[in-house]
Structures are given as C-alpha cells and as structure tokens.
C-alpha cells in the first residue's frame, strides 16, 4: 500500500422511521458534521465515495448522482458503491482504495438511506432481490432468507431462541445511550419471546426497524492525518467477498464469505488471532441471530459458540469482547447503507475514547466493523486501530 489510511472525522444524523430531510439534506448534515469534526472544509477534500442501497426504496434512479450535492461530490472524482446491506462498510473500503493507492490524500465517505418513501412497507423493495423465475412466484418476502437461515443455524448447533433473543436485549439496551437511536429500550428475553411471530422463528423483536438516516467519515493519508490530529484512527485492514446468488445451494449455518472477507482484512492488518487481538466489534446485526452468526464467521467465536458468549455477558459493554456497543441496527436503527457506516463511526469514537455513555470498559485499541447483505452472500469488513 502506498499510503496508510486514517479516519480523521465522523458524523451522523438521527436515525428515525421517517425523516423530514430529503436524501440530499440527510447526506449534507452527516457530511458537514464529519468535516467539522475533522476541522476540514470541502475544498480540502480530493475525492468522494457515496453508498446507498436499493434505488427501489426511493423510487429514484442514479442515486449516487442525485446525492452528489449533499455528499460534497460536485466536480470531484466520485464513486457510488453498492453491495446491498454490505454497502455501509463497503463505502469506506471504496474510500480506502482512493487513499491507500496514493491517488488522493483525502476522501469523504458518505452513506445515506431513506427507506420511508416506499409503501405500504420498505420490505416490498426486497421482493426483487429473489430470482425472478424460480423464487418470486412463491410469494417471497425478505424475511424468509433470515428465518430460513436462523432455523438452520439453530438446528445445526442446537441453539435456543432465548439465547438468540439475548442479543436483541443487549443491543436495544445499549442504544438507550446513543443520541441518534430509534429503538433504544430496556427489554427482556421474555419480551422478545412473546413478541409477534412474523416469520417463525423470527419474531418482531428479533428484527431491526426500517429507518431513514445518514452517516459519514473523512479519510486521510498518514501525512495529512498527522497534521490534523494527534488521534487518528487507522483503517489498517479491509476485506470483502461475495458468494453466488444460488443461496439455496450453500451451508446456511455458516457464512463462509464473511470468513473470507475477515481473513483478507486480518491479514492486511497483521492480525493472527482475531479473538485475542480484536478489542471491540461492531458486528452486523439486522437480526439478533445475525450478530452471533457473523461473530463465528469473523472468527470471534467458534462455530456454534457465539450464543453462549452472548448469554455469559462476554459481548456486553463491560465484557471481554464488547459487540455492538452502539446499540447496533437492532437499537440505533437500520437505514441500510447508513447503518453500516454508523458502525464505522462507533468504532472511531470508541477507539478515541469519545463514545460518552457508550464507552466500553476495557482499553480498546483495535476494533472491527462488519456489514453483510444481498442474498446472504456479501461480507464487508474493516479493521481499525487507535
């Protein structure tokens, strides 16, 4: 790599079910905050990467181009990247290419999502991710891939619904301390178990909400970062892989593509024993079981062993391996691309000791953010160090 890459600023808007701000306005607010936090102006930015998930949410084509004036991209080298739910962590990976390659010394990375425009429900947009010939005629809903994967995961390792529910309890509880959170709440495992079965084994409180919101970071080369701050957070490892859309042909109990993406990032960051070397992890949690499933793919837990770690409190903020100290998608909210970027922001704040009430107890030096998406086929991973 030509340049070591640092994160030097972060910003985000409130996450809510429906926001008044337009997609451009949300992008502007998050981007302006990231620039302010870095002490930079738009003229200091050399390139821009934006991320936003399905155009079908907004009913607008060319969302990257539409967002341009809110993301600060006018007249600059600009890319929009997209890998479904994996987009939020793929956006800073795109920025990393720009800076690590030596092409640019600064790059703005902006992720925005408004899911609220689509009626009767944003879920409807996901109908079109399924195979149009063989799957859509069966009355598909996005929830199926989750409920089918969750059931297989439970079957393979003998996992109980209650163990999985403990993740929703933790994350919604953590989100109470997040100033942008949509669904922070003190709930119990019983609350989750008694919530409406929407697609069994998935129940209402196992699921993150649809949301509107935006989040942004500023990347800088080592040379520029050291002039801006004595506390850069280094983006030392990035990894991403995709599996086939033939999702019914693979082992649903274990996300191999996440493992591949993780090892790519770990290798780059010089990490050999992830469970020992990663201090905090913002693992992708659109559903509570996904946090556990992904911890295993990320090598932060053995196969089938993540549920016990959650039950034992290992993944709590004061635990040995805090997972989703932000409150995650389950608690802060899930504006798809922005949710993944929120995780990058959280690790940035945690590693700088600036997470306020959310600050983890341990001295965190190395953190991980991960996102996942499309037809259960995308892994995007970022390793960060203070």
């Amino acid at each position, binding site marked *: 790599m030509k340049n070591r890459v640092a994160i030097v600023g972060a910003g985000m808007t409130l996450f*809510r079910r429906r926001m008044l701000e337009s997609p451009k306005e949300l992008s502007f607010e998050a981007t302006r905050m990231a620039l302010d936090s870095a002490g930079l102006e738009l003229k200091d930015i050399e390139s821009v990467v934006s991320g936003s998930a399905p155009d079908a949410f907004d009913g607008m084509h060319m969302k990257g181009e539409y967002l341009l004036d809110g993301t600060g991209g006018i007249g600059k080298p600009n890319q929009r990247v997209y890998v479904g739910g994996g987009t939020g962590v793929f956006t800073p990976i795109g920025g990393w290419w720009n800076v690590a390659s030596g092409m640019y010394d600064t790059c703005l990375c902006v992720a925005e999502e408004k899911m609220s425009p689509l009626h*009767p429900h944003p879920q409807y947009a996901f109908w079109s991710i399924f195979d149009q010939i063989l799957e859509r005629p*069966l009355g598909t809903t996005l929830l199926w891939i989750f409920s089918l994967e969750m059931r297989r995961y439970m079957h393979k390792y003998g996992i109980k619904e209650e163990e999985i529910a403990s993740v929703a309890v933790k994350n919604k509880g953590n989100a109470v301390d997040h100033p942008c959170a949509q669904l922070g709440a003190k709930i119990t495992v019983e609350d989750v178990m008694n919530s409406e079965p929407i697609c069994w084994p998935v129940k209402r409180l196992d699921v993150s909400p649809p949301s509107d919101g935006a989040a942004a970071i500023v990347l800088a080369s080592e040379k520029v970062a050291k002039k801006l701050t004595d506390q850069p957070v280094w983006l030392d490892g990035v990894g991403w892989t995709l599996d*086939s859309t033939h999702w019914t042909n693979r082992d649903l109990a274990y996300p191999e593509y996440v493992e591949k993406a993780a090892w790519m990032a770990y290798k780059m960051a010089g990490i050999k024993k992830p469970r020992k070397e990663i201090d905090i992890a913002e693992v992708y949690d659109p559903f509570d079981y996904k946090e556990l499933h992904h911890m295993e793919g990320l090598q932060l837990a053995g196969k089938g062993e993540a549920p016990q770690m959650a039950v034992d409190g290992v993944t709590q903020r004061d635990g040995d391996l805090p997972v989703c100290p932000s409150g995650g998608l389950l608690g802060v909210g899930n504006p798809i691309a922005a949710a993944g970027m929120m995780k990058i922001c959280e690790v940035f704040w945690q590693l700088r000791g600036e997470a306020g009430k959310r600050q983890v107890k341990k001295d965190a030096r190395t953190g991980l953010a991960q996102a996942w998406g499309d037809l259960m086929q995308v892994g995007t991973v970022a390793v960060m160090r203070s």
Partner: protein
Amino acid sequence: MKMSQKITSYPGHEITPEDVKGGKYLDVVYKFEPKYSWAAGVAISRFLAELKEGRIIARKCMNCKRILVPPRMYCEQCFRPTDEWVHIKDTGTINTYSISHVGTDARRLKTPILVAVVDLDGATPGMGILHNLGEVEPSKIKVDMKVKAVWKSPSERQGSITDIRYFKPIGAE
C-alpha cells in the same frame, strides 16, 4: 480539544406517525407500474419445460462431478460449460423451514405460508431449492423431514416453478 467533542447535537427532524395521520407534512405520491418479460435463459427454460412434464432436471459438471439444481449451463466453480442433463427425483429433505405470517409487502396473512429449502434427491447433497410446504401442521414440520412434490395436474401445468404446488411429508397421505 478532541475533534468529536465539537459535536453538541445530532441533526434531523423526525416525522412521527401522528404527523402522517394529521397531514402535517407535504409529500408527492407516485406509482410506478412497469411490466417486464424475462427470458428464462437456456438452462432454466429446459428446467421449466421439464416441470411442465412433471419432472425435475439438473445439469452435471463432469469436472467436479456435481449435479446442479437449479441447473446452469456453466459450472461457476470450475468455470467451464456443464456437460449433461440429468433427471433427479421429486423427493427430498427439508434443509430448513419457516412459518411466514407476512406476505411480499409485509402485510399480515390470515393463513401463514409454509416455506422451506428442500435438498432434492439425486442432486449433489446440499443442492436445495426454495419452495412451499403443504398438507402438514406447522408444528409438525422438522428439519431433515423427507418430503415429496405435489404436482398440479398435467392440464394445469404451465412450465413454472408453481407447477409443483408444494412439497408434503412422505407418508402424509
């Protein structure tokens, strides 16, 4: 001063459900009603034609020896053309299942849809397809249960995945 401590508040204005009901915000409504006609492709056209005849067909790759369903004309692992058509059985095993109380647009259903990944007999182990289950109590469904396709009558079949109505547990008749 640490940079992030410059943040004193987080921007954004929420529109609440009450605002929506009370008409307190202005919006513009648009309905998009396109129509598409998808060519099924070389492999899936044959698969659908076989379904119309009440049979399930797969493709075999002579290099990795996998029998692939849904069939494809190329092996994505060996990255070479697949070699031959192979009829497989209309029986299989439930790999995983779910009881769906919501439809495509997330509206609640009166009768839940039973959905499963069924690993088909005669294909390489783990080669499943998505389909519905029927003639079974939701509480009686199990992973690893043996199932068999229930076909529409020949005159009803159209060359569609729905030519199989659903899969039912073997021994349920």
